[in-house]
């Protein structure tokens, strides 16, 4: 086999991560008293696929470890072992451990095996019937005499043994030969690997008489001893394709124990409960690798992360379909242009309309390719809630809805961390301890609701808890303590809630592992703003609080408001615009040392002239003549002075950074219908540039 397998590594990692997620989900959803066979099968299949894949690619650390996990799972599946809390914990820990190993391998590091070995020892202790905590049995020692050895070993038990060589028991099923596998060929391969240092012992006692023989069945079984320190992976490779049709036991060669091995059981006696799963999983690995390989040029492991996307074939088909239509329209237009006269103008217009239609559909479909269900992010939260509630000694239930809501992959990748923060925050600060809850007449178990849905071109994610709500007094006193506000300030509820997003703010009495260090909420808001999104808080004392995140569905397209300043056109993201007003005789104050401020419904809004900020040459208009676009960023409102409001339109965002360079206050550019370039305003950057912040503008300053 001279195929370069490394090109498939990325696929393997991705699938393994998915498998681990599935395992984790299954484990968390498991009802321990009444195990659903579908759930345990899913978990088992995932583990098996990971093992199979790891074996194929020679990641023996993973294979070895997953094998014991699989063995335990198999026993649970078969009803031979009862699931309990401690076993569940170890299994979950194994999922984490495997994830760690995979990450190490992916980044090209030698995997850290300490945890894996520890867990493996625990599993082996469990398997050999000892209670957890007692000394782990040595490798493989419990295997030989064990009654389960029949379904024990399909692919091996030790990752790094084989110092002296390997002992292989190979017991084909009768149909082995019919599936195109040929022991002669396999043994030849083994002989090459072992450079001839191989002994083969054949067992033919199960062979019937000649007339009773089915000539296409295999009646022989073998014991093979390889007396050379070869890589386990090389051996696995030989048996890779027969594990569905044979029992394969591979053990490292240790001393003389071999001679005591009992003769291999006959194929008929060997129980193979995992047959179905094995074949299903086996088919999956190479097949998927094939279909995806073409799309993925190999690159360095670090940059490979998030470099691929899994797209359903339907979406691709519809794209091809549309491109086909586009080509037809184009050739139609081309023909029309060859001998064009004015009488055909109507057909030209029709053709152009068709072209527009095609282009729009194509654009929508391409966008859809990047859309993925948000369950990719949500799926990690049940685990998070489970673990965190244990640490906090609280009873918390996570309720999720709208997992199938789709959003752009890029947005999805960036929203994960803020969500983790907010959920932890709800659990730590929001939900009360069980006794407190009972005292307040609530049920012992708190609920955190995670909801996603689409609303007018945005995706809205809500994190809602039924805890105590934000503690206004505490926030205020902390804010005064931290010098964020002064004692004599009166703030609206909204402004108070907003304080939790200030850098360095924390109301936690004790800094815990989870939250309370005051790094977090400000970062959450910043991350969300960076995605052109907003986050709001609502709080009902004693009843709970909710965080509402609004995000654009995609980062590639923006709903924009076109404005003009002088001869330039700029674009404001529509989401951040609160309102646009003409000044005409409104309250305008000039605060000493600061810019102008506008009194807008009892709120002071600083005013930034766009022309001044970007040093544009424009005929100076008085403020009264201008239009002010009031925008909101990071909870602050600012008014931006522009000459004229133009239309609203969807614009395709082009990166300025990639095509030119980074400019403060500008988040990107787009090309308008007439071919001119318009810059897209980065609201928060603009506010920073102009040096405006509401913090400088508290009521006392203005009153003065």
């Amino acid at each position, binding site marked *: 086999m001279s195929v370069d397998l490394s090109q498939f590594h990325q696929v393997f990692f991705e699938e393994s991560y998915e498998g681990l997620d599935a395992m984790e989900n299954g484990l968390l959803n498991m009802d321990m008293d009444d195990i659903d066979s579908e759930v345990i099968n899913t978990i088992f299949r995932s583990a098996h696929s990971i093992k199979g894949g790891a074996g194929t690619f020679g990641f023996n650390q993973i294979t070895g470890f997953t094998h014991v996990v699989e063995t335990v799972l198999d026993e649970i599946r078969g009803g031979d072992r009862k699931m309990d809390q401690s076993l569940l914990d170890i299994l979950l820990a194994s999922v984490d451990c495997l994830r760690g190993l995979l990450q190490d391998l992916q980044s090209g590091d030698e995997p850290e095996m300490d945890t894996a070995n520890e867990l493996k020892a625990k599993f082996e202790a469990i398997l050999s019937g000892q209670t957890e905590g007692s000394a782990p049995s040595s490798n493989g020692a419990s295997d030989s005499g064990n009654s389960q050895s029949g379904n024990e070993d399909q692919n091996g038990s030790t990752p790094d043994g084989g110092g002296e060589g390997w002992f292989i028991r190979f017991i084909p099923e009768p149909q082995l*030969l*019919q599936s195109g596998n*040929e*022991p*002669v*060929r396999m*043994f*030849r391969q083994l*002989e090459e690997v072992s450079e001839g240092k191989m*002994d*083969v*012992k*054949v067992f*033919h006692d199960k*062979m*019937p*008489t*000649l*007339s009773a*023989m089915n*000539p*296409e069945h*295999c*009646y*022989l079984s*073998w014991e093979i001893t390889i007396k050379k320190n070869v890589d386990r992976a090389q051996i696995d490779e030989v048996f890779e394709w027969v594990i569905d049709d044979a029992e394969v036991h591979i053990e490292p060669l240790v001393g003389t124990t071999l001679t005591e091995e009992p003769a291999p059981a006959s194929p008929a006696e060997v129980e193979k409960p995992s047959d179905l799963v094995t074949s299903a999983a086996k088919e999956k690995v190479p097949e998927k690798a094939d279909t995806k390989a073409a799309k993925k040029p190999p690159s360095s492991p670090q940059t490979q992360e998030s470099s691929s996307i899994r797209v359903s074939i339907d979406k691709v088909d519809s794209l091809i379909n549309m491109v086909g239509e586009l080509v037809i329209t184009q050739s139609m237009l081309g023909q029309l242009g060859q001998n064009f006269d004015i009488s055909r103008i109507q057909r030209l217009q029709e053709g152009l309309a068709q072209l527009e239609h095609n282009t729009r559909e194509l654009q929508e479909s391409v966008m859809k390719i990047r859309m993925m269900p948000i369950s990719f992010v949500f799926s990690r939260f049940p685990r998070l809630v489970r673990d965190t509630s244990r640490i906090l000694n609280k009873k918390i239930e996570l309720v999720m809805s709208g997992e199938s809501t789709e959003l752009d992959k890029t947005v999805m990748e960036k929203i994960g961390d803020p969500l983790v923060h907010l959920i932890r925050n709800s659990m730590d600060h929001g939900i009360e301890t069980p006794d407190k809850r009972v005292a307040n007449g609530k049920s012992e178990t708190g609920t955190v609701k995670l909801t996603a849905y689409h609303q007018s071109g945005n995706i809205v994610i809500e994190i809602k808890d039924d805890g105590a709500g934000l503690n206004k007094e505490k926030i205020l006193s902390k804010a005064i303590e931290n010098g964020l506000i002064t004692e004599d300030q009166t703030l609206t509820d909204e402004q108070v809630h907003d304080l939790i997003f200030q850098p360095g703010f924390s109301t936690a009495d004790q800094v815990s592992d989870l939250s309370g260090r005051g790094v977090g909420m400000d970062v959450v808001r910043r991350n969300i703003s960076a995605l052109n999104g907003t986050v709001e808080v609502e709080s009902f004392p004693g009843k709970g609080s909710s965080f509402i995140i609004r995000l654009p569905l995609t980062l590639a397209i923006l709903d924009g408001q076109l404005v003009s300043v002088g001869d330039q056109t700029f674009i404001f993201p529509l989401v951040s615009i609160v309102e646009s007003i003409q000044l005409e005789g409104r309250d305008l104050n000039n605060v000493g040392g600061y810019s102008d401020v506008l009194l807008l419904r009892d709120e002071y809004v600083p005013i930034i002239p766009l022309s001044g900020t970007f040093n544009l040459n424009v005929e100076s208009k008085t403020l009264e003549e201008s239009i002010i676009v009031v925008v909101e960023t990071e909870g602050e409102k600012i008014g931006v002075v522009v000459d004229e409001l133009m239309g609203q339109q969807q614009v395709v965002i082009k990166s300025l950074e990639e095509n030119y360079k980074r400019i403060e206050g500008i988040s990107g550019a787009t090309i308008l219908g007439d071919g001119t370039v318009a810059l897209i305003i980065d609201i928060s950057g603009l506010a920073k540039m102009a040096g405006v912040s509401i913090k400088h503008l508290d009521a006392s300053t203005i009153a003065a």
Partner: protein
Amino acid sequence: MDAETLSLEGKSTIIRAEELHAKMEELLMGGVDVSVDLSAVEQIDTSALQLLLGFQRAFKEQDRKLQWVKPSETVLSAVKLTGLGPVLGMS
């Protein structure tokens, strides 16, 4: 006639195993000693090797003589790889 010859030629694999099996059974009925000519075998697989073993065993049971004639390199190598050398008495 007190001996017959069974000749295996070319590819003696699972594809022709049924055919070989039938021939062997026929010869087994015949009641005479058999030489199996293996000199022209270009490819042999487990199914054929198994049949040879079954054939040999059946002869042994009936106390009849069966002998291998000039096994080709391919045969010898396959026999060795599968560990059947001592069993078949071929080396």
